[in-house]
């Protein structure tokens, strides 16, 4: 296939990569956003290359399938320090000591030039459930309420913890590949608007230290500073000054996500930036995610989630409601095609 001028132009772009963090992902995966030839993107819809870093446990393979199909063609998958995945026969294995940037660029060029076929869909391109509508207008349940017309329950009102307006609630699995979620974590959240009403831990996070400061800075809308914080310099005076200047500390409401040891998101952020002395370790006590997240709006909830020390978060997840395994499985299955929730 001859290359058109536009493909040739595109081939020189920074390679948009979406990283799916597995268990035991290489440490370099966290700092990949500093690689000059790559651009690590937030959503698979913007990526050309899916990079699976580390081993993907069986429980998360269905999520990986969905993620894979959400990349636009032409696309390819790389397995970085990951054992082969049977359902992804076309994926290219990359060793720990290979130059990941080089490998990604080569595959990208090959796919774009048409030397390598774009990876086909894994899941069938069909509605997740067939039409099961009953009732006088096909709406599902009897009368005008309820029913599961497309394999998904119709929105029903739910009691509201904040203003008693009792509007419709929405339940879906979030994670494990949302860029700001701790690797491996899958939460089944019930939302009313963007207020979290219920939290169930569907899959606990991996035993893996992420880069909480970079994630927090990203959540605060400071992506460039986040990249800077991933740099080699342990004590970067410019970083500290820029963080001060940005008002990030002021942006975080005080008292948000308070743990039994008295620390809130703001103090934890101070510890990360070096503005406050490092505490020995956070003490989760018997705190659950429910205590921490329920009643918060999405942005605040994500700040709380990402401010936690990875080990503390694992303790909290152990305390928390993990739901009836079968039930949540069914739920996430049924929600699977409703957009990008991976």
């Amino acid at each position: 296939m001859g290359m058109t001028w536009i493909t040739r132009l595109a081939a020189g772009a920074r390679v948009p990569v979406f990283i799916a963090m597995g268990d035991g992902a290489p440490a370099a995966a966290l700092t990949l956003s500093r690689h000059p030839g790559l651009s690590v993107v937030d959503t698979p819809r913007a990526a050309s290359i899916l990079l699976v870093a580390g081993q993907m446990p069986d429980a998360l393979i269905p999520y990986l399938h969905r993620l894979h199909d959400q990349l636009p063609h032409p696309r390819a998958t790389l397995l970085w320090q990951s054992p082969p995945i049977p359902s992804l026969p076309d994926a290219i294995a990359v060793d720990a000591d290979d130059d990941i940037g080089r490998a990604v660029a080569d595959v990208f060029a090959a796919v774009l030039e048409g030397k390598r076929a774009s990876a086909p869909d894994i899941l069938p391109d069909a509605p997740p459930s067939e039409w099961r509508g009953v009732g006088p207008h096909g709406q599902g349940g009897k009368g005008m309420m309820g029913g599961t017309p497309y394999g998904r329950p119709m929105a029903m009102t739910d009691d509201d913890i904040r203003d008693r307006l009792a509007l419709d609630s929405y339940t879906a699995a979030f994670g494990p590949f949302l860029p700001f979620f701790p690797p491996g974590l899958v939460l089944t959240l019930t939302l009313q608007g963007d207020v979290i009403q219920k939290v169930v831990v569907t899959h606990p996070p991996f035993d893996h230290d992420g880069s909480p400061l970079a994630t927090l800075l990203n959540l605060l809308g400071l992506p460039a500073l986040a990249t800077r914080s991933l740099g080699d310099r342990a004590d970067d005076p410019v970083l500290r000054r820029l963080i001060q200047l940005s008002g990030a500390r002021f942006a975080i409401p005080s008292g948000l996500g308070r743990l039994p040891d008295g620390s809130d998101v703001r103090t934890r952020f101070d510890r990360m930036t070096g503005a406050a002395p490092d505490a020995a370790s956070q003490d989760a006590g018997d705190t659950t995610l429910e205590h921490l997240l329920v009643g918060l709006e999405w942005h605040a909830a994500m700040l709380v989630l990402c401010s936690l020390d990875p080990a503390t978060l694992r303790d909290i997840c152990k305390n928390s409601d993990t739901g009836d395994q079968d039930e949540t499985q069914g739920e996430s299955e049924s929600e699977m095609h409703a957009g990008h929730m991976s």
Partner: protein
Amino acid sequence: MTKDILFYALSALAIWSGWRVFRVDSMIRATFALMVSFIAVGGIALLMSADYIGVATVFMMAVEMMVMGLFMVMFMMNPAGLNPMQMVHQYRFSIGAGIAAFVGLTVAILTTPLPDNPLPPGGDTLRDLGFELLGNSMLIFETAGVTLLATMVGAVVLSSASGRFGSAGQGSVPPGLTAGGPPAGRTAEDGKGHGGHAGHGMSMQKKPAMQAHDDHGKGH
């Protein structure tokens, strides 16, 4: 000539989008169809050199319809219209009434001798309006302003959760007869209200479902 073509195009747009408001399934489409209808009317007003009224209509309706759209999504059970359903009643009668109103008005318009006293060309309509608002009709203008203020206060009072029995945080539930006991009097959940997004005649099927949901909601 250009003015005429523009007028007929905008009129067609206004009527067509006004009609679509009640024909589309998606509530968001309905809301924004209404907005398009208003914008078209604003455009016609601009053609008639009502510079301020025309533009202000666009401005106001963009905001109003945005808010309306939010309410649609909030309160309707099927705002995207993915699930076809009919939410109408007295359909035939309504169509008849609509047509009767249109025909009646049209006949009245066509048979009445309308006064012909067009806008003098080259006038500064904006300046006229300004002097009218802050001159002769100051009282009317101020009354409208005070009415709007009263509306704002009234809307907040009506829609906020706080009522006679406490603040928004506690909700408007009467206090218990005993300390911590069940609320005195009737509450919304006791089945007297025809709950939910109910349509006609299915409160029987629906009540159990609502109850189940309420229990579920209170469980945590």
